[in-house]
């Protein structure tokens, strides 16, 4: 892809992440429902950059996506953490998410020696097709997980959990 660059995220990326997470259009597929909640989520998210567990994608030197491994603090479960990924809404469907996910999986496998990555998404999320393309397997479907009263027609959304075992560190 043209001019697509990748670097470790840093705390300076919190402003753009905050901006994306505060965008109501993105809330449909995320747990937050207010700017305050978005700010808390963004702060928690970008905090993992301190551990070099977060990657930032740049297109023509502009930040267009951030993907982060939410490292687990407890040893017994640290081999398979969750990750979150967001692409600038203007830059979707251009393969940026796919590229970032591949790099995130590589970081998880080679640098953190993780065995699996977990993704949590909500029904209808555009990330589902990305996960399926990357061969993630769905292992949970929790009905009515999201209740968005602002969405009068269809307030409930299910939560879907996906997992991908990382080849080098897992023996199936």
């Amino acid at each position, binding site marked *: 892809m043209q001019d697509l660059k990748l670097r470790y995220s840093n705390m300076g990326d919190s402003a753009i992440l905050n901006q994306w997470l505060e965008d109501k259009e993105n809330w449909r597929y995320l*747990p937050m429902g207010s700017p305050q909640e978005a700010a808390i989520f963004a702060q928690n998210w970008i905090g993992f950059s301190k551990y070099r567990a977060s990657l930032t994608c740049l297109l023509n030197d502009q930040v267009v996506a951030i993907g982060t491994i939410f490292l687990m603090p407890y040893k017994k479960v640290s081999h398979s953490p969750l990750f979150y990924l967001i692409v600038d809404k203007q830059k979707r469907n251009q393969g940026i998410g796919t590229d970032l996910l591949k790099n995130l999986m590589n970081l998880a496998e080679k640098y953190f020696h993780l065995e699996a990555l977990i993704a949590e998404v909500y029904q209808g999320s555009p990330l589902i097709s990305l996960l399926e393309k990357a061969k993630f397997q769905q292992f*949970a479907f929790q009905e009515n997980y999201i209740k968005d009263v602002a969405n009068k027609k269809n307030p409930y959304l299910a939560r879907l959990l996906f997992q991908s075992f990382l080849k080098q560190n897992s023996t199936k």
Partner: protein
Amino acid sequence: MTEVKIRLATFDDTTVLIKLFKEKGILRWFPMENSMEVDDAVRLWMSYVKQKAVLAAEVNGQVVGLANLYLSFFRKIAHHSLFAIIVDPNYRSQGIGTKLVKELMKIAKEQFKLEFLHLEVYEHNPAISLYERLGFLEYGRQKRFIKEEDGGYLDKIMMQKKL
């Protein structure tokens, strides 16, 4: 039948919770493995005391079990809650877990207006039959969630029940 009294927990119950986590074999069924991780989990668990979302089970004035609701701060997911329960191994199979979960479901519905409760339990945990008996249904299973010291794995089973 053992006479069990269920009451709201207080911060004074913290030491009992730590003691229960130190009982032999208990940590097999929890994600923590050392005292630092236990302290962290206990801090989070007992933080819900302020919201009156932690229950204690007493037998003869002694706390033998605790259960809590991990109430969510995010509004869109505040209509349900994950919960956790621990019962002293010396008081198992005496209906204490059943009473705790039933009372937890009651406060979840009546006090917190929750629509459903969910839980996470590891395969082979004897508590699975209790959850099934109370009507919890499996909605997912994460393979190899727990990695044990000997290199073995345990799946995580996720269950929920509509209130």
